[in-house]
């Protein structure tokens, strides 16, 4: 039983980070109808910036236990800075074919890779034992680093906060209306340009915060974007393109399938995830929570 909980917690931790990136992807697609391949680059950027911010903070005399708020602030800050100019660039392809949009966001992936290499160097960056300042939670022989538990809690809180924002606030309703019918929203006086800029920046922040949160347990590396995008797209297909609830359930399915595959058939980690993807595509092409295209 303890082994099962260990596996479950491993899967849920992975899902928690995956959810943040997939949620950003879903939000942007849901409103702007753009499949943003660069979401993995935002994740990597958040990780690199998070490492730098924590090192700065500690060098400036901040108490080590403050590194979690530093990471969150760093993720939000860098996402807020880069989101608007990239959205401005994407405006040039909003009304063009999807292939143009994919090519442009793929170009961004490659450009970000070189920019990260230029600013942070080629070597993977780590935070050493920083995450250990929070200690470990234990229940019997099940041990969970407190930091991992905090990341899971933060992701759940963000999921509910995002849901409440979209469902219960005026701006959330405007977003949903714009997602449903852009022209009608414009006719009703909605400033769609502002909505798009806000949504894209929010999606970017979700990615950068995800990257910043994962880095104390992992490493910021140039390989991060591709590693994550492959799984984030599996989440999107399983959950349904554009659905936030789908992102949450999809991330959980991918995280837990990955953990089970690693435990029982280590070589089949990616195959196990994509078997689910194919099954969903066959049985429910729009994804578990996606809307079928009329």
């Amino acid at each position: 039983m303890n082994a099962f909980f260990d596996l479950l917690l491993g899967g849920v931790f992975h899902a928690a980070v995956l959810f943040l990136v997939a949620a950003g992807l879903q939000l942007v697609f849901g409103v702007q109808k753009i499949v943003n391949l660069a979401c993995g680059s935002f994740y990597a950027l958040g990780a690199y910036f998070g490492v730098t911010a924590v090192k700065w903070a500690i060098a400036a005399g901040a108490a080590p236990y403050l590194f979690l708020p530093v990471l969150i602030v760093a993720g939000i800050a860098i996402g807020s800075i880069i989101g608007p100019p990239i959205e401005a660039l994407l405006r040039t392809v909003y009304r063009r074919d999807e292939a143009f949009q994919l090519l442009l966001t793929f170009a961004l992936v490659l450009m970000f890779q070189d920019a990260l290499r230029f600013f942070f160097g080629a070597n993977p960056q780590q935070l050493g034992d920083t995450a250990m300042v929070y200690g470990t939670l234990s229940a019997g022989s099940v041990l969970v680093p407190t930091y991992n538990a905090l990341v899971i809690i933060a992701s759940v809180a963000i999921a509910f906060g995002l849901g409440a924002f979209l469902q219960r606030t005026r701006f959330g309703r405007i977003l949903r209306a714009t997602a449903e019918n852009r022209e009608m929203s414009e006719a009703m006086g909605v400033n769609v340009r502002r909505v798009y800029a806000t949504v894209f920046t929010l999606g970017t922040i979700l990615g950068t915060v995800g990257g910043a949160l994962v880095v104390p347990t992992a490493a910021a590396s140039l390989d991060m974007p591709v590693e994550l995008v492959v799984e984030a797209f599996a989440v999107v297909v399983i959950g349904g393109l554009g659905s936030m609830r789908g992102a949450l359930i999809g991330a959980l399915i991918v995280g837990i399938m990955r953990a089970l595959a690693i435990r029982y058939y280590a070589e089949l980690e990616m195959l196990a995830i994509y078997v689910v993807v194919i099954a969903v595509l066959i049985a429910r092409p729009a994804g578990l929570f996606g809307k079928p295209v009329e």
Partner: protein
Amino acid sequence: MQRSRRKILKAVGGAGAMLAAQPYLSFPAIAQAGPLRIGIIAPKSGIAGTIGECGLRGCQFAVERINAGGGIAGRKIELIVEEETNPKDSIERLRKLVLQDKVDCVQGIISSGVSLAMGPAAEEMKALTIFWDGTTQDGVKETMPNPHYVFRSTDNECEAVMASLLVVKHWKGQFKTVAGINPDYSYGRNNFAAFQALLKKFGVQHEVVAEQWPKVGTTDLTSHVAALKAAKPDLVFSSLLFADLPIFMRTAHGAGLMDGRTKFAFPAAGFQHTALKKSFTPEGMIFGHNTLYFDLPNASALQKQFVQEYESKYKDYPHWEADRAYFAMQVYKAGVEAAYKAKNAWPSQDDVIGAMEGVKIDSLGGPGQMRKDHIADQTFYQGITTHNNRYDFPTLGQIDTMYSDQLQKPPGADFWKWIETAQIKL
């Protein structure tokens, strides 16, 4: 107009034919004046970036010393450094170094994927090439049994063989179940297979209860650690060696896998030694430092000087890639100078190659030689970790030293048969 177009087409065709034939043209004889041009191909980015960087520093140290001493047979060295990336692009850079820069020798290469592809290309181009750490083995099978222009480092399995021997030496009778977490390519798979074969050879009864194969570049190992923990192994053998090793160590520590009930052997831990902090890396583990252990108490004056300079210049401590790069440069130097002395004139490339076969040198980590089959023999260091030092990472408390003639198969032998029949001293 028609005629001039034909002329242009002819010219282009002729140039194309010449370019196509270039690989088959003879590699230029070593020029007798000016500096010796040596091309280096090493990774400066990606997951092997830190490793390539350390190798480049070792190479630079060798060049500075050689040039300060008057160069190689009176000629200074000039380095031309290119990036090692994927096999195709790296071979293009080899071609550029040989054909365009007209280098006298090419050194470098860390990835076996690259060296496997580059070996035949270097032979075809007749380019004297010395691999730092890349092999020409496909798995454990030699793909270039009789190379003429290519020289390579020791077999990749050396560290796994030595770590396995230390496991038997120190822990025989103290474990029954074993698990492995090794990188998912031929290096990791061969290492774990070699470990099991050596346990069998020395009559250590064991049961493999878990095998984990994370892909290179995996940065979340939480589920891998949970799977290992669920299997409750007495001993974990891991040849992780890139940035994933500190991640594994931290994750395993946080999950309680390092509570003292499980033993660990990491044959290639030396690549990441400074990133493995004491706070999450316990004492009592087997760590491999390959051909350079920076904190060796009875190290040579050369090693001490190198480590001291490295520390003051880069605020870091070197690992074995620096030694591999230094070794390659010194083997080339020894070959050129021996051939020059024998001929009493500047030697041809074939003269140098002949002189490099069997040459013995003192590398940073200790004595080494280039075997006649163009495979290096070097001194290896492994041992048990301790926190009793002045650093924030573990070093070796108990150090074992072995020469690679005890750790790698002899020329032409099959690796698995050699393991079965070799007279290896524990």
